[in-house]
């Protein structure tokens, strides 16, 4: 109490101490210590590789190969400059084009399909819904050989178009399934009211369901983009010239040589990781804010 009145800014500390005390009572002092030891271990285990990557990307080659410094003495951005001056910028652009296109296709088709599957009554509905789960779970490892042939058969080998065609195998069932579970959470009474007022089914979808679902659609789109951006196997199999590679495949091609340019490679890895991490943070914000789950509760 004295602490709290004397210095209001330490009030959180007192509160903290109080929660730690109740914790100690419920799980015991030994377990509280174990919790914090484990926390430190898990944080280091998760974050050290990322830190090592970031540090290496701003070290000079001499620091990486000869001096083995841990923290670089100066920030050296040469690796980034070399990287962005080369093919890497094209790979980034390719990844962006393919991911945006695949996401747009998956979200627009998926939203319409998900609405029909959750709200309309027609035969075959349950079979389609079940089929989506099955197709979502088919691993890429089973599909890349025939898809390679499909793409070749359409004359789309080694083109971004080929990738845009096959990426919905990952994103479309996923988007449709997630949107279905969201549409189920919107009260059907809203739609019934609009239908009674003379709104058509399409009108209900466009004026009520889609506007209400915008945050959910954004989150699903972010996840879909991330999946397409992170994809590796299809891009490896379908593209083979330098100008059509996506960034994930491009990165692995840097491993080919005898000498590994770790500085450049870590800079490339870092840049590649940034978009999915940003999208992930953004999606998490939207989910936490409650915009997505139960947007129309009560």
């Amino acid at each position, binding site marked *: 109490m004295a602490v709290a009145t004397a210095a209001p800014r330490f009030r959180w500390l007192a509160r903290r101490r109080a929660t730690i005390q109740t914790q100690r009572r419920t799980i015991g002092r030994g377990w509280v210590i174990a*919790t914090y030891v484990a926390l430190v271990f*898990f944080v280091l285990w998760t974050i050290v590789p990322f830190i090592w990557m970031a540090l290496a990307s701003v070290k000079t080659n001499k620091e990486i190969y000869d001096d083995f410094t841990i923290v670089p003495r100066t920030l050296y951005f040469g690796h980034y400059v070399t990287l962005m001056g080369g093919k890497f910028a094209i790979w980034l652009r390719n990844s962006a084009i393919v991911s945006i296109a695949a996401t747009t296709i998956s979200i627009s088709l998926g939203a319409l399909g998900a609405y*029909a599957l959750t709200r309309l009554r027609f035969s075959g509905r349950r079979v389609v819904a079940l*089929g989506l789960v099955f197709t979502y779970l088919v*691993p890429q490892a*089973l599909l890349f050989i025939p898809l390679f042939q499909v793409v070749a058969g359409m004359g789309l080998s080694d083109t971004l178009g080929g990738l845009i065609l096959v990426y919905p195998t990952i994103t*479309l069932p996923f988007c449709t399934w997630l949107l279905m579970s969201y549409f189920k959470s919107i009260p059907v009474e809203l739609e019934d009211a609009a239908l009674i007022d003379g709104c058509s*089914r399409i009108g209900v979808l466009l004026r009520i369901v889609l506007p209400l679902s915008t945050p959910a659609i954004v989150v699903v789109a972010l996840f879909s983009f991330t999946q397409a951006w992170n994809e590796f196997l299809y891009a490896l199999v379908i593209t083979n010239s330098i100008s059509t590679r996506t960034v994930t495949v491009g990165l692995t091609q840097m491993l080919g040589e005898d000498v590994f340019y770790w500085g450049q490679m870590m800079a490339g890895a870092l840049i590649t990781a940034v978009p999915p991490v940003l999208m992930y943070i953004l999606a998490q914000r939207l989910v936490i804010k409650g915009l997505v789950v139960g947007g129309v509760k009560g």
Partner: protein
Amino acid sequence: MANVADSLAPSSAARQVFPPRSARHVLGADWQLGWLLVGPVVLLVSAIIIYPFIDAILLSFQERFIGKSGTWVGLANYAALLSGDSIPWAKAALTTLVITGGAIAIKFVIGTAMACVLNQDIPLRNVFRGMMLLPWAVPAVVSAYVWRFMFDTTGPINGAIANFGLLDDYLYFFNDARLALPALIMVLVWAGTPFWTLNLLAGMQAISHELYEAAEIDGASTWQRFLNITLPSLQSVIIVTALLSTIWTSANLTPIFVLTNGGPNNATMTLPLLSYFVAIPGHQLGAGAAIAMTMVPFYLILVLLLTRRMLRQDS
């Protein structure tokens, strides 16, 4: 309600052409609009998932090279796999089981511990929650790449060994089968644990506090409460997560491709990676498809178990 809605729908005039009720009776009240909306999804999924899957089955009975037309060879591709003359199928199958089993078991243990920690009332809890899920958000290529550097002779692990004089020589992780396999499993665990943590944490938050309070009053220790309340309550979460994680871990060739390329001496060659090497660099599409097909019974069991559970939860 539905009748009112239908009579007001714009397509109701068109529907009068059919004998009223009968078509709608059979096909459902909204069959026209329903199939119109769901049709594109069904078409695309059929074209790029269902058709290729069937094609892969047919391909596995053919001898077919890239750019050539195939000839039917019956079960010859499968016979070649089992004889093990040219393709180390049996070894790859065993490696796949070892890597998947090892990775799943460790992910379960670490994921549970991580979820327990993040479920406690620790400071900056949301920051830590977000941070620990990071390895899951980055591309598999990036995580594999970073770890390849961590294990490299210029990386921090060998740096520490050299600095403190722990060993006489560097550890060449990916040149030695005894080191490559554990190192690979460790990377898979690092990248895959957040998925477990996320699911287990969500499961833990759904457990009622009253259960714990009642157990505490009865004098149950923390460990007993974990064993008798937390774990049993998480049973279905654990099963679903384990099934999904098994499918994804066993099928994902990306980390192996980047870290070891299947080496040294095929010690880390899994079936998906073998299938890739035979089919694409090796140009033998039929034999590659046959390797992929040998995984289907395994996946079929996992998927059936999973869909049964998911549908039961749904209804």
